[in-house]
């Protein structure tokens, strides 16, 4: 299911947060959403999910406008992995994940044996089968994030929105989470929109990028085309440069480290940058 955003403007009360956002994500692709804190990434997610009504513009999935649909219909098309989660009562992880079936289960009913098996299977896929009976609130931030991912997968919607899914994960779990997303996208043909703060994760795992600054789109397109040094500096801050590993992978590093010990990174000249981009195109895609 493709996701299309046209001329979207939105805000809270009279304060505009997003202006004229356009985005087209084809089915089976991962789009990264990048921008600094407060740039409007979460607001965009809210508009897509029809939690916030846009002032102008429309969001549609496979040609159907989302704003006009009932909650249950939206939930069948879009699932969300929130930034952080807490529950007031000691629900077990399995009970939390089972909530993902609400859009399929009748109002007077509850998930049965079949749903339970499906939930357990997805827990296995995510690698959290051993967490089933543990109270959700006693988990670490990273484990919670994985449970929320399992719940979104259990919801079984063709479009997934992930709001900083890596926020509480350690280095290797960040890569496992992203690798898992790649697998899910490939296996189920899911369309995913992920907010990310780490440009290196974007470079490794995402097909396309939307860069937002102060509520406006600065750049949009395939990862290799968008992740240029100049664009990154404009959106994420001046202290940034792109470089290449010995294996030829493009990486993003800080330009200078104030007060840091050890070797300072060398600032590259312009030719090397443009030359590198062509190599990367071959490697990343």
């Amino acid at each position, binding site marked *: 299911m493709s996701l299309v955003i046209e001329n979207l403007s939105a805000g809270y*009360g009279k304060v505009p947060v997003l202006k004229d956002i356009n985005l087209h994500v084809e089915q089976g692709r991962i789009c990264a959403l990048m921008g600094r804190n407060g740039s409007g990434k979460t607001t965009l997610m*809210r508009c897509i*999910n029809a*939690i916030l009504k846009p002032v102008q513009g429309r969001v549609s999935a496979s040609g159907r406008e989302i704003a006009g649909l*009932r*909650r*249950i219909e*939206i*939930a*069948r098309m*879009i*699932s*969300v992995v*929130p930034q952080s*989660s*807490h*529950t*007031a*009562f*000691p*629900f*077990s992880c399995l*009970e939390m994940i089972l*909530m*993902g079936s*609400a*859009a399929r*289960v009748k*109002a*007077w*009913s*509850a*998930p049965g044996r079949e749903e339970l098996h499906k939930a357990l299977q997805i827990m296995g*896929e*995510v*690698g*959290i*089968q*051993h*967490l*089933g*009976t*543990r*109270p959700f*609130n*006693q988990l*670490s931030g*990273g*484990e919670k994030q*994985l449970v929320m991912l399992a719940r979104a997968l259990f*919801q079984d919607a063709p479009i997934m929105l992930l709001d900083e899914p890596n926020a509480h994960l350690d280095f290797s*779990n960040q890569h*496992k*989470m992203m690798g*898992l997303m790649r*697998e899910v996208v490939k296996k189920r043909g899911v369309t995913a929109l992920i907010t990310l703060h780490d440009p290196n994760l974007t470079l490794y795992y995402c097909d396309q990028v939307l860069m937002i600054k102060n509520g406006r789109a600065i750049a949009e397109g395939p990862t290799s085309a968008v992740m240029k040094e100049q664009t990154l500096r404009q959106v994420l801050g001046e202290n940034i440069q792109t470089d290449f590993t010995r294996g030829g992978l493009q990486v993003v590093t800080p330009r200078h480290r104030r007060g840091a010990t050890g070797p300072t990174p060398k600032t590259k000249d312009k030719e090397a940058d443009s030359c590198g981009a062509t190599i990367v195109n071959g490697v990343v895609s």
Partner: protein
Amino acid sequence: MGPDSIVSENPVGRSRSARGFVMRNRGWLFLVLFFVASLAVSLCVGRYRIGPAGVAQLIFSGLGLDGVMRAPAQETQLIFWNIRLPRIIMSFAVGCGISSAGAVFQALFRNPLAAPDILGVTAGACFGAAMAIMFFTHLTLAIQGSAFVFGVIAVSLAYLLASRSWDRSAAVLVISGIVVSAFFQAGLSILMYVANPYDQLAQIIFWIMGSFHVASWAKVQTTLPVVVAGTILLSVFSWRLNLMTQNEEEALSLGIDVFRWRMFYVVTSTLMVAISVAAVGTIAWIGLIIPHIARYLVGPDHRRLIPVTALLGGSFLMLMDTFARSVLASEIPISIITSIFGAPFLGYLVINSGSMGEKSELGN
């Protein structure tokens, strides 16, 4: 992902779930035993003593099986059928209604310390009862009717006030409830201030403290159907309450129209509480504590929690009322009893909340 799972393995996972299952069954067993014991005690104990044999005689003769046992005395029959039995049914129904409403409100406001009167139903009902006591004493059902109507009006006002805000979260509803409660409490204070201190004031105070000595078959007829229907409705739609405990945005994205369902749950439980409070006056603490005990017994899943809370609340209040009517020579107002038992228990819960596997916290 397969073998290299993201987090460390936990070999006790399976045995934990087995233990949970046993605990749950033991919880049910405890519950049914508690109900039967409370019922037996409530039937036998009282200022007019009727032993277990006496109760058996009464029930047999009541069923028209006169030949099985000797028919009991006329006086005993009168007390049992017209005073004690409606009172027992009434206390069970009220306990059941207020407790399950409490469990629902705790879920809706995502706060284990929420009580059913959080939206002003009790304050409204007290005001309504005081109005009736002062101005419409000559009408038979005036107090009950007026208390019920004002209880419902208070909650409607809180809802109306909250709906004027752009923020549709449950927190705004709680604040509206506090505003409305304060307003009706002020109204009640005015009424108490101008009330005749020799009869009206005392009557208002006794009504507020609550008592089942006013129980009658007429009151059972108005209260029981609402409570039974409400409890069945809440039990049927109980799984959704799990989702209502989630953050609003999460519940919405899982496919629940949070605002509509909140309305449904609030209306159902408000009717149950209003009809109960209108019949017998305020009952303190029950709605807060019973859901806690139930959660301790069967876990937080509302599919089990709602029926267990209803049965436990009914049995508990039935027992407390037996206490209230039989310990002293004169009747003790029920709220005093429930507070004496309830408040220390809540203190215990707050101190030991860690071992209950949950964090009790004020606010969202």
